[in-house]
């Protein structure tokens, strides 16, 4: 009996040690990340900025990781101390993370962010200035602001294979017919730039042939003809790689989903104009073409986001 109990204590002790070691590990990691981030660069920074650590929230898709790294490395190079915080795939984790102070910087998308904050009221349009104005109103209510949007637009696009386009004579979204099957992310039924928008702007109702799919598996489904039409992101590297056809949006369904850095008022107040100029300079260099190429390296060549981001900054004279 006593021997058994002693054994149990031994097991518990080992578990406790393991748990402790794990906890220490992660603590060490983030701490060392932070110190190397600021330590490396404090020497060559012209003005070492004094203020809170910039924590960039990253959503769980490649482009978000790349954008976080692009902004993050540019800030590190200028002497800011930067950390990255992985978030889940959806904005309902990101906004509370801003509110709780876990993050204070996130690469976002003008129209989608607006529609999230106004609870999908359908106010976003294909006009970026108008949409940005509405977004800023929403953000100011929760202590956030948008810096200048990048020229790059990452919005939903409707994509078909060239064979299907030939066979059915598809070139624009308006050419779609109700009997086609559609594979799209799971929010498509409620997303103003997906099923509802198709119906109101083009009068096409694909809801009967709609299969909700995880974004990661949609390209496979299209390639294997499981679906006729796929909803992919316009900056997705795989579209050009596979030679797929992006259906033209002649009637302005698709949103002004320009890349935009969203930051807390605190960051702008503390770091001021230098910070804004730096971030806006980075944003100005991010075009749809460059971002698509960067995504292709991530998705197709399986390179790491930090390497891609470093190359991007070097190629654009921002490194």
């Amino acid at each position, binding site marked *: 009996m006593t021997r058994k109990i002693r054994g149990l204590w031994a097991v518990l002790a080992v578990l406790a040690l393991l748990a402790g070691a794990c906890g220490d590990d992660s603590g060490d990691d983030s701490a060392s990340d932070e110190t190397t981030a600021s330590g490396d660069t404090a020497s060559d920074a012209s003005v070492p900025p004094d203020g809170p650590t910039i924590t960039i929230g990253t959503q769980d898709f490649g482009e978000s990781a790349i954008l976080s790294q692009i902004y993050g490395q540019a800030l590190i190079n200028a002497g800011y101390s930067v950390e990255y915080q992985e978030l889940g795939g959806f904005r*309902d984790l990101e906004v509370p993370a801003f509110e709780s102070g876990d993050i204070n910087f996130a690469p976002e998308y003008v129209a989608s962010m607006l529609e999230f904050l106004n609870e999908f009221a359908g106010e976003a349009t294909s006009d970026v200035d108008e949409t940005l104005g509405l977004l800023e109103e929403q953000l100011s209510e929760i202590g956030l602001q948008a810096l200048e949007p990048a020229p790059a637009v990452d919005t939903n696009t409707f994509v078909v294979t060239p064979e299907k386009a030939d066979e059915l004579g598809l070139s624009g979204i308006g050419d779609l017919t109700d009997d086609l099957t559609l594979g799209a*992310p*799971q*929010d498509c039924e*409620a997303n103003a730039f997906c099923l509802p928008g198709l119906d109101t702007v083009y009068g096409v109702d694909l809801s009967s042939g709609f299969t909700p*799919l*995880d974004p990661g598996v949609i390209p*496979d*489904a299209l390639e294997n003809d*499981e679906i006729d039409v796929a909803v992919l992101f316009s900056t997705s590297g795989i579209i050009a790689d596979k030679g797929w056809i992006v259906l033209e949006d002649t009637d302005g369904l698709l949103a002004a989903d320009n890349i935009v850095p969203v930051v807390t008022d605190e960051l702008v107040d503390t770091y001021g104009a230098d910070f804004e100029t730096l971030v806006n300079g980075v944003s100005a260099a991010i075009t749809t073409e460059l971002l698509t190429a960067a995504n292709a390296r991530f998705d197709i060549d399986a390179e790491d986001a930090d390497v891609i981001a470093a190359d991007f900054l070097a190629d654009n004279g921002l490194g």
Partner: protein
Amino acid sequence: MSALNEFTTFVTTSENYWGERGILIRTWDHLRLSGFALLVSSLLSLPPAVYLGHIKRGGVSAVWIVNMGRAIPSFALIVLIFPISLRYGFGLGFWPTAFALVLLGIPPIFTNAFTGVRDVDAGTVEAARGMGMQGREVLWGVEIPAALPLIITGLRVSAVQVVATATLGAYVGFGGLGAFIVEGFAIQDNGKLLTGAILVALVVFVVELVFGWVQRRLTPWVRADLLSKRDPRSFDIVDADQRTAPARL
């Protein structure tokens, strides 16, 4: 509170029950897939488990190999198998999910059936042989009936895991109850999300009830008053309550 209100609204709206993506079809799809996966898991794992338990050989390594399957997350399996399923014409949804669920369902069935048959009281088996029973008669007449409570426990554990995990099919276009959860999460509709979660919990509950009933019907000799005599050699995930020797055969 508001989530509960949204849930009430969702489940009291009759349009949410009908059609391609309604509650009824999705519940049926969920049950269909889970039942199929459980059936295939049983067919694949019961015969070797019972045989190895009967000859009392190779069991440890078999249990070890089968248990490795538990270490692979079902989500990873589904995503890995997805492109293969498409390439060989099995399509979206059902087959890639079923494949992962079958692998998930095997370990509890195998381990319980193997342990159950192997650990049948040696005296009982000896007595059966003394009465002139041959190997196959001992297996079918003594060992399997004696192991039945454990075999059913394995099926029950497996069924619960499979039903709960079938929700992952929503990522690859399978329209089970998981689709309510994933879509509800994607469009911030807590009512939809909660509907999926509660329905899955309900199905699991019903599965537990059904297996409990089957178990009592098939093994009436395992009476409640015997449950207090726990077998001290209870094994791993095996439910100790079920490990009582048969009172009569």
